[in-house]
């Protein structure tokens, strides 16, 4: 019997804002779906297109990038670059037939535990509705 699809979502969280927000959500017992697989980076600016694509390649059905709000980056403007890279990458995914909604960028500060819970819940549901990523990959059948 086939089990219902549980999306796997890799979440890149920046140390000072979103990762702390995630911690606070946990402390406050705000529910976040277990589908979220967190990876801590010092700044959302560390997140390169290569690692987002690698996450998809390694089996993630969705990738979430959460950073500090613009203007509040602990490293002043690291998140400015994220703000430019991720929209471009989303469009590119769309151009090769992968639904861009599988990649989401949002800003969550350390004080915004409720927002962390809300964004993660929303995103997991979005990815659930899109189905497994394997469906979208063009070369899955070739074993490549």
């Amino acid at each position, binding site marked *: 019997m086939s089990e219902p699809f549980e999306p*796997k979502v*890799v979440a890149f969280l920046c140390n000072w804002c979103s990762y702390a927000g995630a911690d606070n959500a946990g402390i406050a017992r705000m529910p976040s779906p277990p589908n979220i*697989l967190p*990876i801590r*980076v*010092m*700044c959302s*600016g*560390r*997140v*390169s297109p*290569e*690692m987002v694509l*690698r*996450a998809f390649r*390694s*089996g*993630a059905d969705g990738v979430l990038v959460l950073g500090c709000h613009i*203007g*509040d*980056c*602990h*490293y*002043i*403007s*690291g998140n400015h*670059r994220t703000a430019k*890279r991720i929209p471009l990458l989303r469009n590119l995914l769309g151009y090769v037939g992968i639904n861009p909604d599988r990649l989401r960028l949002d800003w969550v500060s350390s004080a915004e535990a409720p927002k962390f819970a809300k964004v993660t819940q929303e995103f997991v549901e979005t990815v659930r509705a899109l189905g497994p990523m394997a469906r979208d990959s063009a070369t899955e059948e070739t074993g490549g």
Partner: protein
Amino acid sequence: MITFTIDGQTVQAEEGETILDVARREGIHIPTLCYHPAVEPYGACRMCTVEVERRGWTKLEASCTMPARDGLIVRTNTPDVYRFRQSLMGVFLSRCPNVPLIQELAAEYGVTEPPYPTATPEEKCILCGLCVRVCHDVVGAKALNFSSRGVDRLVGPPFLESAHECIACGACSIVCPTGAIEIALEDEAIYKEKPIGPTSAIHVPSLQAVPRIPVIDTNACIRFRQNDLTDGEIADACGVCQTMCEAGAIDFDQQDELVQLKVGAIVVATGFAMWDPKELPDLGYGRSPNIMTGLEFERLTGAAGPTAGQILTAEGKVPKKVAIIHCVGSRDERAHAYCSRFCCMYSLKQAHQVKDKTGAEVYSIYMDMRTFGKDYEEFYRRIRGEGIQFIQGRPSQVTVDPVTGKIFVEVEDILLGQVMELDIDMMVLATAIEPPPDAARIASTFGLGRTPDGWFAEAHPKLKPVETASAGVFLAGCAQGPRDVPDTVAHAGAAALEAVRLFNRGEVTISPTVAIVDAVKCVGCGECIMTCPYHAIDHGAEGKAVVNAVLCQGCGTCAATCPAGAITALHFTDEEIVAQIDGLLDLVV
């Protein structure tokens, strides 16, 4: 050298000096009305008339226009001279019977009643021509001149219409001995206030200024303004300050000098600015000269201020009722949500000063009394016992009676549950402080972050009040957030110490999570250099990128930027992150 005598005293003169020049230099008093050291003498008023004997002949001469000559015998106060001045004052007093200066000077010569009929009792102009000379020779605007002749002679702009040459510099008004010229602002409410700010374009900013030397406000200075207005045609108007300065310390040609300093630490102590209460018009700032900010009140009540510390309304009267409003622009969603921290204390002090100096009824209108520091609560208790009316509540409608100038303010006293209407003579608004207008530029120059209220960001809200996200850059005082003097002293001391700490150690401990460049892979494209928020990367040997590990804060944005993977963020390498990705996805089956 010319030698002559004045009142029996032998004096010397340079070629070209007048008798009056010499007398003034020697400290010999000769009365004048139309003389001013900044302009050429005119000889209009004749008050400086003295008796001059030369080659046996005696004449009455105006000393301001008579050149000194060898062998002159000058007498400044003979009976003839006295009678002459007496009759002069009779004429002046008849023309201007209500001008205090003329009244006083006439009284000196025993003239107390105007001997002749007066044409216009309100007349103040004595036709001395000082305003004309100043406007022509010093300012260069030439907006004023004499017109008509004889009894109709008067001073004014061409056709007595507003002259566009007039630059509203106020020189004519200042130099006029009788106060016949007033400066009025068009399209504004009557603003006959005592000046709260500096009274001249060249001024010492305050007695506590460091360094305490005068500066020239080039927006107000006649010389700079005329130069701008005439595109350099009139480039040397006025310059009186330079002429008068004995030390020769004034140089109008001073230019900004760009100095390059190599430093190991920077302390940002850029302070605060006052919020402009005109942004919320309900409290009436700008509608009456008697509604002022707390800072303006400090100037008024300060001993070095325009009234030598007396608390007076703009009309020059002692106020009977004064209201002091706390939290103007602070704790206000429409302006600043934060509390400006030190205003409650100074407002209490000001309330005490008003009570003490004037005995007026004082209303202190506050939201919460924030007297949190050492001895602050005790201070509040003391002030409460001085008969000041404390009203907890917010003021709303402020109206100003256009005839009497009285100020009416409605305020809800929430403790009594009543709305009160107060009629007051003076209102002080304890306005919010805010970051200075160029805070964004300062932040970007020094790599500073800003907290949501706009103040510069400290490295940690609890544990690192003076450090910033940029190593070696420290914050001191209100640059980081509102604080009063004792707290600023503590904060600034900490900043200084942190800076000194950097120098005293032989080595610096840095975090290991820095970026490093693999020079073999790097092609020197410079994109990492453009990316780094701390300017920690530079072109090194062969143009390849080199990271300054002390400046690097370890964000890793450079590593994500480099297409060649030539720069690595230690401890957050691509390999480590991929291992986490793979590991997490493998675990979840």
